[in-house]
């Protein structure tokens, strides 16, 4: 039996190992090798693995605030091959929109194919560090999600939040400590980022999770824009 979760169109199948599923927007089509489908009551669901997705890892770790709703518009920074974005696209449904920003042409290749198959995904080949470069092909959003391996992850996140996120909207930052500094201890970096977010006037930290054992040296920060 699938049970609803805090994320829209997202369910948990309880068992020895709980599994996370989203209601598929594209029944019969699988996009990724590691993807498996589940059918219940004539509806098709796609399994979202917390080992491959930081959003799923945050849900599995008990994160309470995501800000995602059916119909939400999302700015997804670091869309990569489109694995997690395709599930965000399931979550927000046909009425939502996911702007997928990715810098590398090599992984964008896969992402374009996913976007072409899903009417609520829009690809943008650009660097998340230069939000002005893509502002003219994006719009204001309800949610900003960022998962990029850059030294200035926090600065890039805050610049995008300032430019694209609506007031009262939610920002999610999947932070990779190793990209910020390989020689400092990850928990020290997490504490430092928490402190920096706490001092900001424009955002409030509303949830925080460390993503171990799903992702090593990663933490998940959720903020609300004032």
């Amino acid at each position, binding site marked *: 039996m699938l049970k609803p979760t805090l994320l829209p169109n997202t369910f948990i199948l309880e068992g020895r190992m709980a599994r996370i599923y989203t209601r598929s927007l594209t029944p019969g089509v699988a996009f990724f090798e590691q993807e498996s489908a589940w059918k219940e009551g004539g509806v098709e669901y796609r399994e979202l693995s917390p080992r491959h997705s930081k959003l799923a890892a945050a849900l599995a770790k008990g994160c309470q605030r995501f800000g995602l709703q059916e119909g939400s*518009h999302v700015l997804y920074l670091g869309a990569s091959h489109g694995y997690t974005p395709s599930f965000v696209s399931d979550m927000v449904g046909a009425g939502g*929109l996911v702007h997928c920003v990715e810098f590398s*042409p090599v992984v*964008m*290749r896969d992402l*374009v194919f996913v*976007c*072409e198959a899903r*009417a*609520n*995904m*829009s*690809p*943008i*080949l650009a660097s998340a560090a230069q939000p*002005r*470069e893509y*502002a*003219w*092909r*994006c*719009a*204001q*959003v309800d949610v900003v999600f960022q998962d990029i391996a850059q030294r200035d992850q926090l600065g890039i996140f805050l610049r995008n939040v*300032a*430019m*694209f996120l*609506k007031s009262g909207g939610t920002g999610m930052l999947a932070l990779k400590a190793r990209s910020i500094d*390989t*020689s400092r201890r990850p928990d020290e970096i997490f504490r430092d980022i928490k402190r920096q977010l706490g001092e900001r006037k424009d955002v409030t930290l509303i949830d925080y999770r460390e993503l171990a054992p799903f992702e090593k040296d990663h933490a998940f920060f959720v903020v609300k824009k004032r």
Partner: protein
Amino acid sequence: MREILHASGAYAIAPDGVVHAKPGANAPASGEIAAQWAALPEREIPSLLHAVRASLDDDHKAALRAANIAITKEAMRASVAPDSHIIHASAAIEELDSVANRLSKRLRDWYALYYPELEREHRDHKAFVAAVLEYPRRNPASMGGEFSEEDLASALSQAQLLSTIYAQRELMLEYIERMMRLHAPNVTAVAGAMIGAQLIAIAGSLRRLASMPAGTVQLLGAETALFRHLRNRNARPPKHGVIFNHRLLQLAARERRGKVARTLADCISIAARVDYFKGGLVADALVAKVERSVKG
């Protein structure tokens, strides 16, 4: 009334901030829109994006997505540069080497059952494969065991494959040399085609190699050793990455290697900048500088 272009269409903005989507307005050329937005003051952008969002009905959403797919596809087409070929060809060589190495070891073990003396005679894999193909029949005095026709034919077909792999490696190397001389002549002259190609592959492109500090170029390919050192200061810092295999660096006395590696990386870095930004040949002076540093 001001008109703002956006990838989802054109918007008319009234002085009080109200936006009217212009019906039937086709998205104009992306260069034109980008230029208009580049000229906007940063503080105006969030309210404009708010206005765009407010009028993003199903039609405008579809138009925005279609425009972004088209723009992205065009950018993907443009992203294929000579660098891409150099990077793949150099990776192909590395893979051919590793496959040839494994298959050669297997062939040696196998063929040595039949003719151990020949296996022992050739230390070099390539020479061994050539010898096997040239003298598939052994000396009658050999201590090797009996092989049926089929046993021998099977082992020899592996040798055939290896010889094809070695020929393919030559082809790839010639291709890389031509491409490197054409697109990065100075890097090729200073670093050599293969090392230059590996540097471009690790950096990601000639452009990124050219914009790296020389100290980074010196250590490209030694990331494991570098991070080991950064995490634990007891581990000594690496002196060189892929440039380790450079002819002049190999020539240098052990205690001079660090200095030569530094000079070599400086010169490669300058060469990459000239190749990417300016063109022309400056390699002779750079090579002379590295040669002087070898002598100390």
